[in-house]
């Protein structure tokens, strides 16, 4: 690599703060991006990655203060520019791709308008010219370059297609720099890869500089030339990707690398009895109507699915979004109507309803994904956790309830005063511990975990997984572990169930499936998850080969 006379983007001593300049959220960050190269900014949530990138674009949240020695674009300090000229950078010289394509696209605009708007604003092109350019861009992002595509609304596109439209929007004015803020985090693993390959191809063709923001080290290892590791608003380590990931110098980088989920479930005793048995489980939703008076064809979200689970066992359920994983959880919990039989502890639950079902709910509890939506913001933690005791152990008095709640909160690793505090005072990982405590307070035999770690940072994920394993060993719990993250599933599950379109396409012993997947679909999922495995300094396992 020959060093360029000046960097495409150079930031020097950038600080961003909210209330108090003495406690900055971004602390004297300096970095540079060169044309044709990708700099990855990695770190956990709250480390200031996005703030750093957005301050280039003047897109900081209200109330944030910014100070920098220089923010240079092609050697020209943009801080000296008038606001109007700086504004012209957005969507002009600098293109941006956001994480969530569904909210980043205006739901009322067609694809043509989404892409064309920036061109109209920056270049003042006419209609015909814009249309021609749009078709051209669609072709570049590998979407069908047809009139039909231009006329679609965002909801008529798949997640991957939406992300491609966003990339086309970002490219509309031939930017020199692309800021990609977690561009694939919201996508399924198999689609992530195609989007990143597309970005790489475009980078080569256009000599783009890319500032890639990500928490996913596997992805960074594969697609970035240089890495800057951010921790609590500071860049703690920076350098060429291979060097940083293989010989990390800073403790925090090592900590990040070690946080990749690893390990295996504890072995199961052979004679463990069956706890849960579901046969022929089906859930149908109303499909789209045909015409005004046509009957709606039923849509099978879960289609004739059977599974069994033994005491102390973890069954991993994997599949892409829309494969029916979460619907399966709700059906097993009998929260939505479903056909088929569900037998728990030799009691057929499918024939019970209402009051007769209530005592059985104690044996089967659930933990959801979203650590923010899964707790009532208006109830104190103690009050949220002891709800199960109020329902199932009516004889306990307030002091006994408080005592049990306190003991359980302590067991899941929360501070002693947690019961009196409110959910917003806790971090994502802590909230997930609260949700686990809420489920465990009634001493269930089965815990259904619906993406319990998906919204958490890698290092926090590892802690929650450890907690789940410890609890399992101590209380003999069975888990139904739903996740799209195969690495996490592998670290905890005895057996694996692969779902697609509501059906089981493959099931078996976890290691067996990982070593020798029988279905092409399973293989694709595994490849996507493991191809980009990082070899950590300690020498963790390399990717599973094809």
């Amino acid at each position, binding site marked *: 690599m020959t060093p360029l006379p000046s960097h495409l983007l150079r930031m020097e001593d950038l600080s961003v703060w909210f209330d108090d300049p003495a406690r900055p959220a971004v602390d004297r960050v300096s970095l540079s991006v060169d044309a044709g190269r990708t700099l990855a900014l990695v770190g956990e949530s709250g480390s200031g990655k996005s703030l750093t990138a957005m301050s280039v674009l003047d897109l900081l949240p*209200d109330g944030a203060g910014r100070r920098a020695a220089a923010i240079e674009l092609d050697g020209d300090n943009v801080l000296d520019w008038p606001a109007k000229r700086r504004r012209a950078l957005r969507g002009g010289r600098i293109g941006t791709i956001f994480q969530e394509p569904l909210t980043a696209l205006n739901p009322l605009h067609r694809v043509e308008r989404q892409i064309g708007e920036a061109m109209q604003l920056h270049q003042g092109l006419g209609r015909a010219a814009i249309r021609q350019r749009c078709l051209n861009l669609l072709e570049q992002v590998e979407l069908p370059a047809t009139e039909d595509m231009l006329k679609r609304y965002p909801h008529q596109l798949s997640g991957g297609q939406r992300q491609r439209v966003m990339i086309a929007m970002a490219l509309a004015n031939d930017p020199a720099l692309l800021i990609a803020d977690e561009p694939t985090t919201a996508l399924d693993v198999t689609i992530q890869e195609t989007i990143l390959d597309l970005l790489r191809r475009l980078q080569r063709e256009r000599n783009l500089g890319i500032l890639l923001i990500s928490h996913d080290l596997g992805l960074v290892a594969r697609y970035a030339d240089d890495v800057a590791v951010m921790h609590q608003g500071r860049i703690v380590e920076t350098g060429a990707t291979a060097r940083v990931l293989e010989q990390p110098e800073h403790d925090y980088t090592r900590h990040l690398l070690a946080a990749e989920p690893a390990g295996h479930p504890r072995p199961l005793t052979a004679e463990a009895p069956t706890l849960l048995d579901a046969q022929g489980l089906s859930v149908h939703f109303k499909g789209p109507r045909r015409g005004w008076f046509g009957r709606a064809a039923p849509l099978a979200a879960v289609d004739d699915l059977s599974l069994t689970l033994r005491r102390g066992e973890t069954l991993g359920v994997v599949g892409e979004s829309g494969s029916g994983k979460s619907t399966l959880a*709700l059906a097993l919990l009998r*929260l939505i109507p479903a056909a088929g039989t569900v037998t728990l502890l030799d009691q057929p639950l499918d024939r019970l309803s209402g009051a007769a079902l209530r005592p059985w709910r104690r044996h*089967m509890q659930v933990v959801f994904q*979203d650590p923010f939506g899964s707790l009532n913001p208006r109830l104190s933690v103690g009050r949220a956790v002891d*709800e199960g005791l109020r*329902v199932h152990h009516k004889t306990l008095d307030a002091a006994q309830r408080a005592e049990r709640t306190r003991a359980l909160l302590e067991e899941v690793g929360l501070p002693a005063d947690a019961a009196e505090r409110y959910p917003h005072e806790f971090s994502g990982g802590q909230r997930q511990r609260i949700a686990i405590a809420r*489920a465990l307070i009634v001493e269930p035999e089965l815990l259904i975990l619906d993406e319990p770690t998906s919204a958490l940072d890698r290092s926090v994920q590892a802690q929650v997984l450890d907690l789940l394993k410890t609890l399992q060993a101590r209380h003999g719990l069975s888990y139904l572990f739903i996740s799209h993250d195969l690495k996490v599933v592998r670290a905890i599950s005895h057996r694996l169930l692969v779902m697609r379109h509501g059906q089981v396409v493959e099931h078996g012993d976890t290691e067996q499936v990982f070593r020798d997947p029988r279905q092409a679909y399973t293989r694709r999922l595994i490849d996507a998850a493991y191809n980009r495995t990082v070899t950590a300094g300690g020498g963790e396992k390399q990717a599973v080969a094809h």
Partner: protein
Amino acid sequence: MGSGNPIWRRQWRAFRRNRRGFWSLGLFLVLFVLSLGAEFVANDKPVMVQHQGDLYFPVFKTYPETTFGGLFETEANYRDPYVAELIEDDGWMLWPPIRYSHDTINYELTVPAPAPPSAENWLGTDDQGRDVLARLIYGFRLSVLFGLILTVTSSLIGIAVGAVQGYYGGWLDLGGQRFVEIWSSMPILYLIIVISSFVVPGFWTLLLIMLLFSWMTLVDLVRAEFLRCRNLEYVRAAQAMGVRTPVILFRHMLPNAMVATLTYLPFVLNASVILLTSLDFIGFGLPPGSPSLGELLGQGKANLHAPWLGLSAFVTLAVMLSLLVFAGEAIRDAFDPRKYNDAAA
């Protein structure tokens, strides 16, 4: 405000920050509390009488004239110079600042009614010789009380209906929505006119008739909130725990749905007051003789040569409604979920 819950505390702080709204609510509450004690502010009976060593409280109790050595068994008329003389011969009377009640007729007017403002009647009298200021004070109380009762009852019904529709969804929801649409398209003003042409409506009957049509304001709002909350994970978790439906509705969903609802209440109160006033104005409201702002406005229109009638009623209404709107704005800001999300982030 709920001392423990941090969300309430945050909202209370946000409310305090809107100074105009905060002071408006404060001023309104002061006026309202004062008007609740209207009998001590404007009355044709003294608050306290001392006569021959005994204490009497005419505000609370009716005393015959004979108590004070008069001739008649009927209630003493303390404004009568004869009675006043009897009492003050051997004692004293403590009068409220305004010596007229809402229905006291000033028989000593030197000009024909409506009389202009004077030292005796600070805002003049209406066309039946009654003190305008006294009627305003009683009218304010009546309007606000009527509005409050109507707001509270119609909100309770509206929230209950909306909650049930939103939580259960399906046909119950669809049917309920269509019923609300049809019911709310009834021309309420004309219905009340028709009804009051064969019954003379009192305070409570009028309230009931209005309630029949005013409970729908909040239904849509609460319904939408419950539809949203129904799929939240903590509601799902409570269902999986086996918590009973009413408990889920009240503990987990209602407090969160109430945010959007509380925002509307000051405006619902405003609308109730305006509706009552307009009915009184056209003469189909409260029974004749009631102290009512609408009736005073009507008099102002009928007696354009006596501008103090219309002006007094107008200023009172304008101040009351403005205070409520300002307070309502502050409450809306305090509960704005976007603002409070920002604060949480």
